[in-house]
């Protein structure tokens, strides 16, 4: 049992190191992807995409575009449905997705 456990822990150690390597590579690839100027320009959704994604007609969809590190604070329902946004690096844009 001891020998079995030893080799299993060894295999799991290998697997975990392989995962760590893949995760860091993936994070790097994603950052390069989203920072590429061409991809930045083409990285958008259209209003109809939003409407299709939240398809029920009685839903209102509000879009919030904020600078990095903007703090969003949501209060407990018993205190009322409050959402506060606080930016340190620029104005926040909020708009409603228009109906058809």
């Amino acid at each position, binding site marked *: 049992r001891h020998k079995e456990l030893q080799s299993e822990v060894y295999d799991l150690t290998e697997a975990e190191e392989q995962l760590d390597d893949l995760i860091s590579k993936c994070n790097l690839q994603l950052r390069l992807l989203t920072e590429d100027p061409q991809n930045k320009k083409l990285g958008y959704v259209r209003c109809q995409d939003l409407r299709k994604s939240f398809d029920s007609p009685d839903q209102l969809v509000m879009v919030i575009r904020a*600078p*990095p*590190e903007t703090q969003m604070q949501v209060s*407990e329902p018993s205190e009322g449905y409050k959402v506060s946004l606080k930016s340190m690096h620029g104005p926040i844009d909020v708009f409603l997705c228009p109906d058809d």
Partner: protein
Amino acid sequence: RSRMLVSIGESFGHSSRFQKINQMVNSSERSFKRTLDMGSIPKPLKRL
């Protein structure tokens, strides 16, 4: 803990951060309280 704080403004964060917030907001307590309130005195509609 009466509120939750998240950082927004970056793409592709951890999607699960909003799952917890949505669970908290949609927890039954407040809506239960609201039905109680609604049951007693009908709230005057707020003027836009």
